């Protein structure tokens, strides 16, 4: 059974149809890259899966728990109970484009806040876990720094550590390198590759084709609210037969 099942998702902003009919699966341990031009609905899709937007149709199941479905007779979306939605939320981590770290808290507090206050983890256990994560992220010695004292790449790694501190089953990335200098995207790529080795399930929305090619084992190409094509990176980047995909990728070849 797939860990994430997305079926026929529809999302409108007033009259603008952003997601028209999106279906895909993510398997345990898979790294999925979602690529496509600006305005194709990639981020909106991620936000629907992460409960930051309400979908207008379709069905999503996370790790066997149905988040919402569409009642065909009434023609509207029915979400799971608050308790279930909260359980689902804790299985999902999201890394934002702009990091969204809490500026008034030290790196350590950013990471341990949710484990302590949401999961009710003992403080020393949360700190131990945070130390491990900081080491993994190459941020040893930064635990007492504040986000404003760190570079963009470091901030993004803190936000990855913060998401991982809750032991999510799936980690989502919403254009994790878009706010970074090109030289800094390498450090994020390295971290994501490291996580992929540990069989972390990840879904990454990105503009970086090299990034998608390097790290993903499944690529989804979206355009105009639809999934145009999906497959392995070799298939998609190597020899796509789809005209629209070819056209999009041609811009990155040069």
């Amino acid at each position, binding site marked *: 059974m797939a860990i994430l099942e997305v079926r026929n998702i529809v999302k409108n902003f007033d009259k603008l149809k952003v997601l028209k009919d999106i279906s895909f699966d993510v398997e345990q341990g898979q790294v999925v890259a979602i690529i496509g031009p600006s305005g194709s609905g990639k981020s909106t899709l991620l936000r629907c899966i992460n409960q930051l937007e309400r979908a207008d149709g379709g069905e999503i199941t996370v790790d066997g728990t149905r988040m919402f479905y569409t009642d065909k007779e009434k023609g509207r979306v029915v979400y799971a109970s608050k308790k279930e939605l909260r359980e689902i*939320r804790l299985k999902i981590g999201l890394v*934002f484009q702009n990091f969204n770290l809490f500026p008034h808290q030290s790196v350590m507090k950013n990471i341990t806040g949710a484990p302590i206050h949401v999961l009710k983890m003992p403080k020393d256990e949360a700190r131990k876990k945070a130390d491990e994560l900081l080491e993994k992220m190459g941020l040893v010695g930064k635990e007492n720094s504040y986000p404003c004292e760190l570079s963009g790449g470091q901030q993004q790694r803190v936000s990855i550590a913060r998401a991982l501190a809750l032991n999510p089953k799936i980690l989502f990335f919403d254009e994790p390198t878009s706010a970074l200098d090109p030289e800094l995207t390498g450090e994020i790529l390295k971290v994501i590759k490291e996580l992929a080795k540990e069989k972390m399930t990840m879904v990454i929305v990105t503009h970086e084709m090299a990034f998608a090619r390097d790290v993903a084992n499944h690529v989804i190409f979206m355009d105009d609210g639809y999934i145009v094509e999906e497959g392995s990176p070799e298939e998609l980047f190597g020899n796509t037969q789809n005209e629209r995909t070819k056209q999009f990728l041609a811009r990155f070849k040069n």
Partner: protein
Amino acid sequence: MDWESIKKVTGILLEYLPNTLKLFAVTLLLSIPVGMVVTLLKKCRFKPVAWLTNLYILIMRGTPLMLQIIVVYYAVPMMKASMERDGSQGFFSNFIKNIDTRSDSYMFTALCIAFVLNYAAYFAEIFRGGVDSIPKGQYEAASMLGMTRMQTFFRIILPQVTKRVIPATSNEVITLIKDTSLANIIAYAEITMKAKQQMNTYSSIVPLFIVGIFYFVMNAVVTVAFAVIEKKFNYYR
């Protein structure tokens, strides 16, 4: 005015300074929490509550504080007089009738009510601006981490709002120190009223300059205090 008289006037003003400070302190300590509550009421999802709160803010900010002081101060004696004429009974009537409107404590209470209601409206607007200035991403990050609405507000939003509202709050506090002089309209024995009396006693304008120095020094203290507080919050941007 000779040096001896200046000393004497200063001594009298110092004697009545606690009255000014008392009004200042009570207003400050109460209007900030009341202002926070008003901010929350303004953001209430039940619209009539939000509308009423807006109306309250509109009136408090739209009319002079001096007028508000007079209205609050004379409201009870007026009600009392009309109740005594009608001979009306009941819990509320008896409560009003039992208030000794000639007492000092009545005057001070009336002043505090007027000042707190007025200043809470200003603080509410400052806090609202502070809350609105926190980026949406902070709420989204908190909710992705499973925090409840309460946790998000008290752990993530409020500490950041505090930092952002400090400059505007210091403005209000400085204004409040000067506004305490409005209490002289109902003959509250604060320093401006005393300075006016001394001006008449000595037929000299010097007492007014002395009282001016009093306000100036108090505001200097407040300014320095806020500079220190601002610095304390400078550990992050």
